[in-house]
């Protein structure tokens, strides 16, 4: 059985985290950054828990207070899945025990699945599992030991996109376009020329008279 461990240190990013507020609607300045660290031990069968991405068929896997996680592969059929996660800021842990059984991917209420119907037959595809009631701006670590294989543990650390305050968006003039400069310059010059020409014309005709 081969084992390998890959660790990406999370410490520098904790220092960078300026906001420790867990209140969802605080108007204080928040920083936003995304960090992935994977820590996993390999066993006979391996799978990686990860966030759902656009290529999986969703707009985003990261919501304000929930995440969409990928499902274990169907090779681990009929095994119960337990999910442990831990808020690294407050050190609270939560375990969701036996939330669903892996394959034959029986439809469960909490599993997100798509149903595609092309007129001839309907296929349903299970996308992932939504973990809810999370706190914005906190870091979570996830572990998913599958019940019968004790060594099988996968976890990763990640940080939320903490919500940014829209008042911080700089909505001032970004830049002047070329059209604006051309129109302004040429029209200003032409106005000036016409004014001078009119004055010269009137003066000349009065002088002539």
């Amino acid at each position, binding site marked *: 059985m081969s084992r390998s461990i890959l660790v990406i240190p999370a410490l520098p990013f904790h220092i960078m985290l300026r906001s420790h507020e867990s209140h969802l609607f605080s108007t204080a300045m928040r920083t936003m950054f995304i960090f992935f660290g994977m820590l996993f031990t390999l066993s006979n069968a391996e799978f990686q828990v990860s966030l759902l991405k656009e290529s999986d068929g969703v707009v985003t896997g990261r919501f304000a207070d929930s995440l969409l996680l990928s499902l274990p592969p169907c090779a681990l059929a009929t095994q119960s899945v337990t999910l442990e996660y831990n808020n690294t800021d407050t050190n609270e842990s939560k375990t969701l025990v036996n939330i669903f059984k892996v394959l034959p991917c029986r439809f469960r209420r909490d599993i997100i699945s798509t149903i595609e119907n092309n007129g001839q037959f309907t296929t349903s595809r299970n*996308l992932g599992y939504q973990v809810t009631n999370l706190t914005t701006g906190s870091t979570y670590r996830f572990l998913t030991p599958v019940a019968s294989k004790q060594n099988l543990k996968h976890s990763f650390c990640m940080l939320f996109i903490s919500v940014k305050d*829209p008042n911080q968006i700089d909505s001032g003039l970004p830049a002047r376009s070329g059209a604006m400069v051309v129109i302004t310059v040429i029209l200003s010059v032409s106005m000036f020329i*016409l004014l001078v020409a009119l004055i010269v014309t*009137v003066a000349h005709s009065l002088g002539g008279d």
Partner: protein
Amino acid sequence: MADGKGFTCLMVILILGNIFGAAAGLALCALAIWVAVDQFKLYPISGVSGKDDIFAGAWIAIFTGFAFFCMCVFGILAAAKKSRALMLTYLILMLIIYIFECASCITAVTHRDYLVGNSNLVKKQMLKYYAADGDSGSRITLTWNKVMKEVECCGTDGPVDWIEYNSTFREKFGTDYPWPTHCCKRKNNYEVVNVEACKNGQNTTMFTKGCFNHIVSVFSRYTWAISWYGFAVLMFMFWLLILAMVYYLML
């Protein structure tokens, strides 16, 4: 000096130029009416932000366009009558209208830069005013609902705008719906195809493109109508006025 071949030629050119100028002025008036009517109903986006001079420029252009038409007709008369007093009146009034039209062109194109130079202003406004109470809130909400439904888009740069930023919508309705239901695809009877799938962000059941490109194209279309066409009319009038001044000197 007054009655040579060159003089007659100049008078004919001036008359023809004024006929063309009258037509151009009338077209400017009509185009400005089209902009002012705002068929895409995007005025609240510029109005609430205070950068609505694209439409102010349109209103000015309605009047200056029509004034150009009237003055060009008067100019035909003044040139044909070979009257100094009339030509001087024509020159002074045309210059005043010219200056107003310049103001319209410059202000319209400047405010377009403010509004759609980048997506920040539109995004900030959407996050602040969508689902907000008050007059601005209801106008912005109605405008965005219409845009999202007709253009089949969500958010400014995409649906992720609703998640990345805090918003009045989230403060009012919580995190159960990450984005307004207008982002969801609907059937012909206006019912949402799949509310749960839309809430989870499945991209087959919701609109994933941003609305900003549509907003840019509409405001650009309005601005080009007022600014660039107004600029073209003014460049023509510039040379017409120079010729008129030469004609005046020859009278």
